[in-house]
């Protein structure tokens, strides 16, 4: 569903990613692991078209989205939940969701379905986004992306700084999405949290792709993880 083909990208002249390739199938959760600064966020920004590609291409459902201007990438069905949530401050919860709905002209029924997943947002619709608690902000960031009815979803450290109960809720939603057939690329620091949901795990080291393996393999042998991202 989502295919990164030997993408290279960076900031200005500084190249960060070198020929990174990855496939995420429909209804699959692939987790991207790597040390801080390895380039995980850069992979997601490059896939979204927010960084110009120095090489390679990005395909979504067969369409080469890396040829399109950045604002058409989400319209093709790629949803993004960025690191640090990055809600539209000054806009209310409802308005943040409205921006998500407009991207792919989703209707009220989509909004209802999304609010079904995050009932707490329903009570806070008119509240300014920046006044929500950390967990609620993450819910909103997730709900905003789901309003696109994405075919593939990029999640960058969605559980960063959240309470265990909130982490559970987010993980539950991710599993629900997999069942609905969404292709999910997940970046996560907590290896335990990852291994319980991921189907496959890909490693990233200094901007280069490393091994890609079944999550079951890692569950059996944790030492592999330590070798890649150990302290």
């Amino acid at each position: 569903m989502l295919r990164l083909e030997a993408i290279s990208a960076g900031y200005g002249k500084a190249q960060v990613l070198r020929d990174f390739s990855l496939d995420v199938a429909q209804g699959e959760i692939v987790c991207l692991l790597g040390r801080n600064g390895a380039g995980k966020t850069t992979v997601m920004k490059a896939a979204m078209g927010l960084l110009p590609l120095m090489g390679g291409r990005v395909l979504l459902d067969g369409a080469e989205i890396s040829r399109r201007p950045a604002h058409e990438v989400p319209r093709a069905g790629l949803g993004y939940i960025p690191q640090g949530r990055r809600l539209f401050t000054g806009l209310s919860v409802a308005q943040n969701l409205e921006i998500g709905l407009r991207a792919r002209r989703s209707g009220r029924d989509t909004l209802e379905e999304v609010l079904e997943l995050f009932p707490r947002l329903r009570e806070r619709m008119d509240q300014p986004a920046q006044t929500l608690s950390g967990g609620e902000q993450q819910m909103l960031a997730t709900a905003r992306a789901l309003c696109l009815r994405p075919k593939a979803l990029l999640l960058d450290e969605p559980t960063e700084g959240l309470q265990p109960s909130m982490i559970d809720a987010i993980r539950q939603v991710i599993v629900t999405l997999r069942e609905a057939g969404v292709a999910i690329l997940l970046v996560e620091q907590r290896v335990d949290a990852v291994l319980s949901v991921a189907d496959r795990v890909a490693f990233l080291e200094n901007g280069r792709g490393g091994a890609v393996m079944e999550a079951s393999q890692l569950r059996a042998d944790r030492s592999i993880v330590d070798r890649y991202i150990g302290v």
Partner: protein
Amino acid sequence: MEIGPYILLASLEGAVTAAVLALTAVGLSLVFGVMRVVNIAHGEFFMLGAVIAWYVAHWMGGHPALGFVAALVVAPLLVGAIAVAADMTILKRLDYDPERTIVATIGLLYIIQQLTLMSYGPEARPVEAPFNQRIALPWIERGESGWQFYYPWGLSTTSYKLAVIGAAGAVLCGVWALMTRTRIGLVMRATQADREMALAFGIPVEKVYALVFGLGAGLAALAAVLIVPIQQAHYLMGADPLLLSFIVVIIGGLGSLPGTVLAAVLIGLSDGIISVFFSPTLAKILATLLVGLVLVFRPQGLFGTRAA
């Protein structure tokens, strides 16, 4: 005349200044808020509005109201279109880099000014007001027979000046409604909050920028059309509105529309009153001093909610 009527007169003059300043500054504030572009050429868009108003009124002939109304429509649209073209050909190519856009808009300032000098010339030309009745204002005073109204000599304004205040207020309400009640306003505010996330949610940021730059310039041009029956059109008239707009935008809080309007009223009224009682230069000195104090003690602006 006693001091009371004098203050009323100065306040009325100040209110006209404030009204026109608020329109101009809101244009500058929008551009800075949404695009993070410091538009040094903003005063030239103001000047272009006045000059185009003169051309339109001159060509139309007939009753002054006819030319004026035509100018009210044509000048903001034309100036807005020029600004959109400048955005797409210059600012977009610079990737809206904050420093380089400052240099570019300085260049734009001189280009517009010199082209106007070459075509329109160095003269100051008036545009006739559509209506201009003198309205004497009453004052209340305690005489031998208790409180009584009378009309002090010299205490008057014109119907046109009152109309300018009303029109500016109406347009500002319109801008407010646009930003808070419409879809395009929502999209502009989302872009202002986070440009990258706006892109990630399908907002065509470049189009939004072009629209905002055009809207900002159009507001300056509209303000100029309103003031040109009082002030005359001249190719150097853009400097003062630019300076005052910057003062207002900084005092009001960068990118905050209500703050900008409040600051415009504050600066406009005090400018009017200080100019009448002391001198216009003192008014500018005090306003600039206030900016310095605000920048030191309250960098987010008097009415700003968060650091820009």
